[in-house]
């Protein structure tokens, strides 16, 4: 079973994403900000990370930069999932090493399509 880390400061979003991803046969863990996510990754690298942008303590972009510098940090497939939906944000995320990008609001079809796109399913 593949493991996905869901990183979002909204518990509602985490719950919705968890439900969709569990249906897709992923095991899920959650983090509320970039720092928590980085700690979780240092313990064990997930296969996939669904990543919000705007969060307290450490935002998604800073987390991604740090993740990619970690040992083994190039491995997880990172899918941004954010309300930041303008070209400059998307381009910045892709340059920082994001594999895909979801513009909120999202639904099951979009998560499935994007996870398929990066070869997770």
């Amino acid at each position: 079973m593949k493991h996905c880390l869901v990183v979002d400061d909204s518990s509602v979003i985490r719950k919705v994403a968890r439900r969709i991803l569990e249906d897709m046969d992923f095991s899920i863990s959650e983090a509320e900000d970039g720092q928590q996510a980085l700690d979780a990754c240092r313990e064990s690298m997930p296969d996939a990370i669904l990543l919000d942008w705007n969060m307290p303590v450490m935002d998604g972009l800073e987390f991604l930069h740090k993740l990619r510098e970690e040992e083994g940090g190039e491995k997880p497939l990172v899918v941004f999932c954010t309300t930041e939906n303008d070209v400059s944000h998307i381009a910045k995320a892709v340059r920082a090493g994001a594999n895909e990008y979801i513009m909120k609001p999202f639904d099951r079809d979009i998560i499935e399509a994007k996870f398929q796109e990066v070869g997770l399913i």
Partner: protein
Amino acid sequence: MTPSEYGFLKQFLKSRSGLVLSDEKQYLVESRLVPVTRRTGHKNLSALIADLGPRGSEDLKNTVVEAMTTNESFFFRDKTPFDHFRNTMLPNLLEGRRSQKRIRIWCAAASTGQEPYSLGMCLQEDRHKTAGFRFEILGTDISTEVLEKARTGVYSQFEVQRGLPIQMLLKYFTQQGELWQVSPELRAMVQWRKLNLLENFSHLGTYDIIYCRNVLIYFDQDTKRDVLQRLAKQIPEDGYLVLGAAETVVGLSDAFEPVPQHRGLYRPRKQGAAASPRLGSAFPTLKAMNS
């Protein structure tokens, strides 16, 4: 809507667009046509259907046909037909058309345009291999409304997130608020034309590749046979036909044969090659045993 009104409507749609409705599809008719009655000012479905007779207006008839066609589409739908394009069809045709340097592609049920634009993106991605070649992509559909959308190339945030890799969104689209528009270069690659597949299309000329996906499924057997037979005349011997994931030529046409290991991909059967024993024989079993 009475049974006889429903019967009339079924006949009307079959003859106009090939759409075959089974008896239990009344709910579909209601969900698609009640909104039309509001636009046209008919007081109910019965009144609308009454206006589809011989003296009814062509505009109204087109509106009803368009409302009943299914236009779901997304970029790189089903993925494999586009892998076949880049890995098989395109390399073979680049070789086979070395002297003409022209490749023509027809998307025969293009709907809101995602399929032709996806092919255009494939060509852009492979442009280092296609230097000197000219490509024509034609998108046709029975519905004026969806063609209008296809032509403008404007899609919602939801539509650009199903099947379209984010890198391609950045490369080939420009953002307009919540909407995304296909770039002018990509739009210039595709021509659009209204076309009903039930009508004669021989005037279009030949196409090296025809995508005809997810439209035959709405037709009855005779109509499928007829359309496939006429499509075969538009494809040169080394050309290709692409059907939808749930569609096949098997049992319908011996003008095509499947390309092995390529689901949904067909090519014209070479003249003189043995046709499927299932076709054109009154004694299929006997013939199969003898062959």
